């Protein structure tokens, strides 16, 4: 169905691609968002969110096993016909394009807010576009290698969060389950968004070399993400008082501001610059999915042109309408509403459909 020759990804690349997409700018605001809803019990919500996202990722694998040699686009055209597939591809391309655009601008907004407050927003987008273009025009294997490199290059940053932990007040976490389960459940709605990104499995699956370990792969990817979120959130909860944490917009960065060595101050600027790599592992694969779907609609292998135009349109758009942090947050909320359908509801429905379809087919052939 599709040519995977020379584009295959290993299990490690598969895991870290998913994990890379999941870990994005969300981690900067996650402790606050969770604390607003569930207080210091928010870490339970993170674990519950992990369960939900893992189940959905496993469902996606189950679906993809039906058509192991194609992406979701090929699968849709098998089940819903050529035009069904095309319509699906348009929706998916638009979804990923919107998702990418929001993440891309959000990344630039955080850079502007914390590192380069005097640089014009459109310049940041142009500067970010260049490496993004160079990466995303390649095939999925290159993206996989990039994610692996970035992961091992930046994994140490998470341990820096353990430094402020010695000043932390563990009493803040007690008692566990302060106000009952209701607020915790409410916060799960926030935390499941932070696991978004596993839906790229829809595209990654056919490229995976050892398909039998796909399920283990998604579980590991989700677990890695969960641990990263859990460390950051628990450090934030012990470090800040539960009464004050909601006052900081990006508590994750504020924690880093406190770390100071004899030879370096304002470590958050250094670390945040480093974190750009991590953010790029979110944006680049998402962008790739969007332009891949676009070129699939037109039946082309090459996706450089749609990528080029996507970036140009983004630059032109932010030139005329530079988004503010508030607009970006509204857009992010829209993406999240959409993704409830795409990443959580859609796999469940499709899984049921595919299974019922399979049952009928079985009967007919009998």
């Amino acid at each position, binding site marked *: 169905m599709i040519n995977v020759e020379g584009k295959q990804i290993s299990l490690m690349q598969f895991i870290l691609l998913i994990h890379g997409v999941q870990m994005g700018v969300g981690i900067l605001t996650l402790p606050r968002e969770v604390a607003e809803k569930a207080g210091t019990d928010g870490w339970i919500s993170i674990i519950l969110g992990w369960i939900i996202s893992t189940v959905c990722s496993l469902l996606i694998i189950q679906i993809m096993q039906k058509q192991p040699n194609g992406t979701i686009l090929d699968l849709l055209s098998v089940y819903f016909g050529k035009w069904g597939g095309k319509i699906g591809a348009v929706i998916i391309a638009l979804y990923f394009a919107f998702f990418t655009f929001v993440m891309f601008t959000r990344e630039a907004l955080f850079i502007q807010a914390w590192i380069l407050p005097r640089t014009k927003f459109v*310049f940041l987008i142009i500067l970010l576009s260049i490496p993004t273009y160079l990466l995303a025009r390649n095939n999925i294997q290159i993206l996989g290698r990039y994610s692996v490199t970035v992961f091992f290059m930046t994994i140490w940053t998470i341990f820096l969060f353990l430094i402020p932990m010695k000043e932390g007040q563990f009493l803040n976490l007690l008692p566990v389950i*302060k106000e009952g389960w209701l607020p915790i459940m409410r916060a799960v709605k926030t935390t499941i968004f932070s696991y978004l990104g596993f839906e790229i499995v829809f595209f990654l699956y056919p490229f995976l070399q050892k398909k039998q370990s796909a399920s283990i792969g998604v579980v590991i990817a989700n677990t890695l993400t969960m641990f990263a979120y859990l460390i950051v959130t628990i450090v934030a909860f012990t470090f800040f*008082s539960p009464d004050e944490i909601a006052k900081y917009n990006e508590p994750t960065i504020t924690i880093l501001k406190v770390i100071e060595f004899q030879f370096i101050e304002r470590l958050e600027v250094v670390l945040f610059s480093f974190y750009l790599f991590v953010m790029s592992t979110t944006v680049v694969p998402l962008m790739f999915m969007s332009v891949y779907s676009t070129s699939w609609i037109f039946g082309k292998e090459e996706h450089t042109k749609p990528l080029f135009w996507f970036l140009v349109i983004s630059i032109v758009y932010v030139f005329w309408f530079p988004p503010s942090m508030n607009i970006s947050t509204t857009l992010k909320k829209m993406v999240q509403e959409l993704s409830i359908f795409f990443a959580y509801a859609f796999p469940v429905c499709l899984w049921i459909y595919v299974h019922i379809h399979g049952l009928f087919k079985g009967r007919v052939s009998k």
Partner: protein
Amino acid sequence: MKRRFRLFLFIPFLLLLTSCNYQVPLEDTTITFILGIDLDDDDNLIFYESSPVFNKGAKAQTETYHTKADTIRDSRKYFDSVTSGEVSGAKIQVLLLGKRILEHEDWFPILDTMYRNSNFSINTRVVVVDGKVSDVIYYEPPSNAQLVMYLKSVIDKNYKRTRTEKVTLEELHTSFYEKGLTPSLSHVKKDKKLKVIGTALLNNRGKYVDTLDLRESTLLLFIKHKKKHPISYTSITIPTKNERGIFHKDDLSFTVQNVKTKIKTSYELNKFKYDIDISMSVVILESLLTIDMKSDEKKIRRIIEERLETEYKDLLKKIQDYKIDPIGLGLYARAYQYNHYKKVEDNWGEALSEADINVSVKLDIIGMGAINDTRR
């Protein structure tokens, strides 16, 4: 496509040029190291800033200015107009607050920009000045050291020896918003010399209530910072009542090697009950008591324990009378008696003032020194 791509490559180089506009050589900046805020006699806010001079030939090491203004940002206008360089607030090390400010409630929002603006460091030490801020900020240390270094090391040293609290902007923010804790700050005063006089206690609206002297601060910090141990050098002197002559003060000093504090929280008869167990291991450093060190170890231990217990009782009574909670006992109430705490959290000081607090001190004398006694 290839050619277009090459054109693309030029853009970063062009963009790099734009950053040259904002280059700031060190000589041309005025880096504020100390920021002071005070009220004058007519209750106008006065802002002080002190910055080092990097010019080699300059006579003075620091430049200090002050102005009347509404806010920190507002004062910047004036500072910009009198200093030669661009004023930068990114490296403020010490924030001096006049005691007169703290005598009013809700002064905290003045500091808004220091938290809002990501340029500011939130590790700035916050220090209360007894008297006028101008006395301190215009003070020239006799050792010719930079005032900021001097202030910083005085506070850090005293904090290390658990004699005063060291509070950064970030910690101040925490203690301000945390309902089960009231802020406490290091307190300095300038008489002939600049000195640390103890720990200033504020109530939950930020109003100044009292200052603990160095002895009391030590006792407070023993309970508050459970993690700060072992304390390498803290001596407590215990004067006893019967003084015989000029030299026989019956004093006893020791260093505390290790402190362990256990705080138990319970709720009985509509009030909170705390059992605070403090166990210390100490080394005796000085003893003018008429006691035989070897045979009367138990007696010495008892004397010290009783002494400390009464001092703790006085300290806690003081805290309860002021309806404040510098120790953070509210955190324990929240952690272990959440439902009861939740009802009173907005009036925690009130609730704590009615609480029963029992302190017991357990001493472990691990060293007596090199001699038995100095009596004849």
